[in-house]
């Protein structure tokens, strides 16, 4: 497998009290071109975040001196908009909602795969830089998506999509060029907080793919084995 460099290198601060996890994450992210700093306690993380040099926060929930939820809440109360991702063993039914309500941009439960974390970091750091134009219109190469009218055209040819398919395409296009994982799709397209046994993502993707590619020689949606899916212009 080829090692890709990060699409955009980000200076990441990880606040995590378990050195093993911190090392696993740090190595994984550095391998993909990101710069990583590490804080072991909540208060340490807060003071480092105050320096304002980091582009993204990865925060554990259970931390010494200041728990992760309070840390993110405090930063948000201070008006800090740095993207934040929770990385935690707390998998309570309501934990994810709690985390997002506290102001985090994403919530990932341990154990996790580095590829999953990377995909989420890419999505989150991109989401925060989204231009105003992107709220109404998305463009991936010669694919055009009109968010207001819920229509999609490839090289001028209208593609007939159902609501679920449109939402799937929209999410992929928002993250064009970046791999999105199965669980990211389940959470963001179908709003599911559980993982169904059936391959619903695969089924929907293959439907969307066949609609999108009908009459064209090249496929836009690619499967990244063991990681997820990506939509690309070429």
């Amino acid at each position, binding site marked *: 497998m080829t090692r890709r460099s990060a699409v955009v290198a980000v200076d990441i601060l990880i606040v995590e009290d378990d050195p093993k996890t911190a090392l696993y994450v740090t190595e994984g992210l550095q391998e993909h071109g990101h710069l990583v700093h590490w804080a072991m306690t909540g208060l340490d993380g807060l003071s480092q975040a105050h320096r304002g040099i980091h582009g993204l926060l990865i925060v554990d929930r259970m931390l010494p001196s200041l728990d992760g939820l309070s840390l993110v809440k405090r930063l948000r109360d201070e008006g800090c908009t740095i993207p934040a991702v929770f990385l935690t063993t707390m998998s309570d*039914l309501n934990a994810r909602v709690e985390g997002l309500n506290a102001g985090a941009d994403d919530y990932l439960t341990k154990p996790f795969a580095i590829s999953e974390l990377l995909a989420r970091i890419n999505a989150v750091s991109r989401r925060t830089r989204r231009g105003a134009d992107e709220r109404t219109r998305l463009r991936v190469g010669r694919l055009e998506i009109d968010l207001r009218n819920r229509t999609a055209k490839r090289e001028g040819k209208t593609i007939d999509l159902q609501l679920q398919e449109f939402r799937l395409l929209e999410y992929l296009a928002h993250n064009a060029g970046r791999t999105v994982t199965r669980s990211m799709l389940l959470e963001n397209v179908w709003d599911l907080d559980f993982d169904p046994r059936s391959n619903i993502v695969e089924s929907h993707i293959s439907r969307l793919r066949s609609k999108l590619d009908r009459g064209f020689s090249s496929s836009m949606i690619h499967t990244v084995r063991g990681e997820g899916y990506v939509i690309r212009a070429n």
Partner: protein
Amino acid sequence: MSSARTRPLQSESFRHAAMYAGLFAISMIVLTALVYVTMDRAFKADLMRASNDDLTSIQKAYVAGLPRGKGVHEAREMIEDRMLAPDDKDRFLLQYGLSERLAGNMPAMEPHSGVFTLYYPRDKASGSQATQEILGHGIFLAPNLYAFVGRDTFGARVTEQEVLREFGWILLTSILLASVSGLLLGRSFLRRIDAISDTCRSIMAGRLDERIPVNGGKTELERLAATINGMLDRIEVLMDSLKQVSNDIAHDMRTPLAHLRYSLERTKIGASTPEQYRAAIEAAIAESDHLLEMFAALLRIAQIEAGARRDGFRQVELGQVLRRAYDIYKPVMDDGAHPFEIEAHDALHISGDPQLLLQMVSNLLDNAAAHTPSGTPVRAEAISDEGRPAIIVADKGHGVPQEDREKVFRRFYRREQSRTSPGSGLGLSLVAVIAGLHGADIQVSDNAPGFRLAIRFPSA
């Protein structure tokens, strides 16, 4: 062990009996006092009437004799007549001046009129040390002539004291009886209590199947015993299911862990090329992912069982849940060539958690898709069943034999045919737990052919 027992004298019931005996004694004493006073009054009143009659006769005799100058004589005669009567308790006195006794059977005294009581030492002859107590009435027949009629009340006192003594005995006997019956009652009460604490003690020692002996009576203790037995039955069932779950976890988690270990060991011995190592590592990751999924599902079941999501209950429209599930599952069913249709009625409102309800339906559809041959029709309904909102999922597959229908909800239960297909054996357990959280009941039936599962919610 016996030190932990309550002895009869310390028992609650004995204390009650003693208290009642005390109260009884007090009321007996009050009663006795009342009887005594009443008796004394009646006796004295009788005495007064008799004395008065006598005194009146003496006065009449005196007045009758006066014209003939024989007043004193007539009065003395009358007294002496009366003294002939055999009653030795009557006392008479006719006295002139301050000390001259003219007639009578008592010594002269300082005369004063009215009713009063006199006390004298008893005669030597009667041999008694007690005082005489003479209650009587004195009047002046003439300025220097004093007449007194009285009666020795000693006999009455004796009677009164005898009555008091009788009452005393009655009091003593009744207190004794109350104490003994209290002790006996206490002992039978204690025997029941001891039976209960013996049972509790042997349960504490680990014999969970012990029960308090009951004889089917309707007393408070019998009912208490029956209630405790019911509680113990429930606890035993829960303990058994907990034991079952831990055994299942131990067994079902061990198998994939063992597989993981075997394949890693085989790789260590047999693999030589990077490709072989990569394949082995990928298999190991997949195997551990499977284990993690099982843990996640178990955790979720436990959290739902603990009612973590009940706070988030809100009005949910069952038809909407089913339509959403249809949108999500239609492509999956298409891939398996399952004809898939739904019938979703409107206005089926229940109080619930929309995410969990969607997961419940998803699990049922997952099952239908996974456990039926390709091409098997699947049908889901959100309808009103006997007035209750219901979700029904049915397929036309092989179905589940009657004897296995209850087992499908057990954790890790997988029928032999499905052992080879992927899955944790937790899907239907999760369905049962979510249904339970919503107060719904589940009915499994034969879809002739196929599997039909109906979840009926409480009507709003």
